[in-house]
């Protein structure tokens, strides 16, 4: 491993404080190549520059991601579940509707399957000294599908629109406390400044594909997106029929590499079973999202390719910290100790998941502290804890949850795990509407139940998981967890610009949550898509986006 210190010194002299700390971390060996790429991209270093830093520091380079370009042509057909609402980038709330947005729309940056941000409509970005102002440079020569040129004004308007409560924006929760309406300012045609409410080291993720609503629209967009699907992307709309499907054609004026397929077709289905049959019968080439339990027929069939993307989507098992029987943290720890996570991942999720350690810091996040010991099943310790808490004979409690994906089966496994130490769990499994209720305290089984399981989708950074379900004033705090020390640690984590201080704060948060155990994070499940064997070049994100511009049928 040879190092080019001269080159590294030159980088260091030009670098900002967080960038210098990143380079130092690489040299000390505390930051791996993957983490260098990921964090460097957040700080706005270009990928070639990061590669050169990595090479100078003696890190082995990975094989080039670029594949040989296929000849253009072909039609790619995708089966997917039906979007739940009208397709309007501002309000789309679901994993099916959001996949429509990125067919024609583009983001400032794309969060890849490796959680590394890649430039898209922004060519570069950088924070000020404390991370409270981020400056984005906007790509030149980009045109909307109506021929108008993309400028910084469109970018600022798109983001301000999402941050404005008056617009029923689905992304409002992501911007609350981060960016107020008007905080995005066009400085000149190619420069946008984001003036944040508070320092935020992970801000670029909030305006990347990670925030699926944040495609860039014309500044004068007025809410009729379904008519045009206007965007800047490699495809443009051919035809959209609500509840039926959509088709797209190659955009010949695209700024980047032109799309390979001539056309793409998306067919909406009411259920997963017909999608599987359609894939088997050759009616579609791809199933966009294949939940593991209902897709076993194709997941294990060598006639199909499974695209498996590591994700931090998970099911939170919360216990109310403010009332019996879970107000004593020993009882919460005991329950968490009854679960055999490895078995859960193998049995329930057929191995397509990673075990969790009762905090949102999944191993895949570079800022997670890997030195925190993994909680394992330990029934003896669980019994001791219950004894010490004065409930050695066990107790009865109701677990309320939603009928969604594998959650009912997970609830049954938790039920039988807890039974081993005398905790009798009664299950109350409701339809999603009934479980979420009005989604405010006092009017929601989700937020009011003694114990519940709630689904959380993928996020590129753990910020949302750390805030809404766990902060003292969090709006989704079903566990009713109130801990000032935790609140302070989250603040310092969110504000931390460099990876090492993020990781230091993360380690403290992980240890605190492991001790307090307001929520059991037992596993983080992979995102699965399935394609026919002859289809290549399909890219999906854990966020449920699908990119077909490099897709090819052979």
């Amino acid at each position, binding site marked *: 491993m040879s190092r080019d210190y001269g080159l590294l010194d030159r980088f260091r002299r030009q670098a900002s404080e967080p960038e210098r700390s990143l380079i130092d971390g690489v040299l000390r060996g505390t930051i791996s190549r993957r983490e260098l790429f990921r964090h460097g991209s957040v700080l706005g270093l270009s990928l070639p520059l990061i590669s050169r830093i990595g090479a100078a520091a003696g890190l082995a380079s990975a094989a080039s991601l670029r594949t040989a370009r296929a000849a253009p042509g072909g039609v790619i*057909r995708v089966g997917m579940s*039906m979007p*739940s*609402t*009208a397709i309007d980038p501002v*309000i789309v*709330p*679901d994993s099916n509707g959001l996949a429509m947005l990125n067919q024609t729309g583009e983001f400032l940056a794309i969060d890849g399957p490796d959680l590394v941000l890649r430039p898209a409509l922004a060519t570069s970005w950088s924070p000020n000294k404390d991370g409270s102002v981020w400056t984005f440079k906007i790509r030149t020569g980009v045109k909307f599908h109506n021929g108008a040129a993309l400028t910084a004004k469109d970018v600022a308007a798109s983001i301000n629109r999402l941050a404005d*409560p*008056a617009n*029923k*924006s*689905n992304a*409002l*929760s992501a911007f*609350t406390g981060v960016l107020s309406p008007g905080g995005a300012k066009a400085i000149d045609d190619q420069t946008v400044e984001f003036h944040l409410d508070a320092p935020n080291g992970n801000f670029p993720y909030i305006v990347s594909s990670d925030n699926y609503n944040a495609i860039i629209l014309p500044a004068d967009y007025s809410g009729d997106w*379904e008519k045009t699907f206007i965007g800047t992307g490699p495809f443009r709309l051919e035809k959209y*029929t*609500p*509840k*039926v*499907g959509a*088709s797209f054609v190659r955009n010949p004026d695209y700024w980047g590499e032109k799309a390979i397929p001539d056309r793409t*077709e*998306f*067919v*909406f*289905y*009411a*259920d997963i*079973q*017909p999608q599987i*049959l*359609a894939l*088997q*019968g*050759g*009616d579609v080439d791809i199933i966009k999202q294949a939940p593991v339990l209902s897709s076993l027929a194709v997941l294990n069939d060598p006639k199909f390719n499974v695209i498996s993307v590591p994700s931090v989507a998970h099911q939170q098992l919360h216990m109310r910290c403010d009332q019996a029987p879970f107000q004593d943290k020993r009882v919460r720890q005991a329950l968490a100790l009854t679960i055999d996570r490895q078995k859960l991942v193998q049995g329930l999720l057929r191995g397509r998941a990673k075990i969790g350690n009762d905090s949102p810091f999944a191993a895949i996040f570079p800022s997670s502290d890997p030195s925190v010991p993994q909680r394992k099943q330990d029934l003896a310790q669980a019994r001791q804890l219950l004894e010490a808490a004065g409930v050695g004979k066990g107790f009865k409690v109701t677990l309320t949850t939603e009928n969604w994906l594998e959650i009912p089966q997970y609830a049954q496994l938790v039920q039988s795990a807890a039974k081993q130490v005398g905790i009798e769990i009664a299950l109350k499994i409701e*339809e*999603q*509407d*009934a479980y*979420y*209720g*009005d*989604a*405010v305290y006092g009017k929601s089984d*989700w937020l009011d139940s003694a114990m519940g399981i709630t689904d959380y989708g993928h996020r590129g950074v753990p910020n949302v998981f750390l805030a*809404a379900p766990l902060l003292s004033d969090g709006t*989704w705090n079903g566990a009713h967890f109130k801990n000032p020390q935790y609140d302070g640690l989250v603040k310092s984590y969110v504000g931390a610009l460099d990876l090492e201080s993020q990781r230091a704060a993360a380690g403290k948060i992980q240890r605190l949550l492991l001790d307090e155990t307001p929520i059991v994070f037992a596993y983080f499940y992979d995102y699965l898509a399935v394609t026919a064997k002859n289809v290549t070049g399909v890219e999906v994100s854990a966020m449920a986006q699908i990119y077909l511009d490099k897709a090819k049928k052979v």
Partner: protein
Amino acid sequence: MSSIAAFLGQRLGWAVMTLLILSVMVFFGAQVLPGNIGRAILGPLADVAAVTALNHELGVDRPLWVQYWDWISHFVRGDMGRSFIYHTPVFPFVAASLTKSLALALVVCVLVIPLSLAGGVYAALKAHRAADRIITLTGLAMTVVPEFVSGIILILVFGVWLRWLPISAKWADDAGLLGRLDHLILPALPLVLILFGYIAKMARAGTLAALESDYTRTAVLKGLPQATVIGRHVLRNALLPTISVIGTQVGYLIGGLIVVETLFNYRGIGALIFSAAKAKDFPMLQAGVLTVGLCYTVAAIFADLLFYLLNPRLRSGGAR
């Protein structure tokens, strides 16, 4: 002719009453579904302020009777309202899916009515012999196989293994008539299987009763050729109850095919109603249910009318 007018007038009066009651039931029944409309549309994680704003915009924060009156008074004037979810008029959705449902129902009827009538009558003519047993038993067996089972088997055989027929309704809506028929056969088959046994059984029972009746014996004894006896005396009487049965099945064929429509991704009105109910898109749900109700009532009136015209006891004149 005045008796037929009175008959029709009475039937129409009942139909209007039925639809009115149906409108009340579907409107207030929908309100019982748990959860909040704005919340259902914006998703569980949306901001409370956004949910309140949307509820106000949709007008679902008004008293229920005001909402009902607003809806039904527009509906009778032909305005089905606007979808909560798609922010566009409901009518094109209902019209498109009704067209598809009618197409499927038509294909099913064209296949199943001649088949099952022929099967039933033939079974009756060969009563208690092998042919009768085979028709009756297979018909019965197929009737009790739910359509999601027969549907999957048919898909696996014809769509996945043999690849003779396309599995799901095609996205390209502008396919020619043949292209469409191609896509209709597989979804129609499970329904044909279900209805065959039922209709054939009715036709067989009616034919048997007619064959054993006095007037048939008289017709035979007065020396009429067998074809005339069957065609003029037996079938006419035998098929009366069968017509009522077919009439009631049309309602099911149009509005009740959620399973088949889901399985074959056929965007009929059953699937429309089901997805509207799940998404709390009440204008869509109500318009869909009332439209199915309307079709059902029309089919029932039509069956009654046919029954009336064929039944010598209900009208003047008879078979000569």
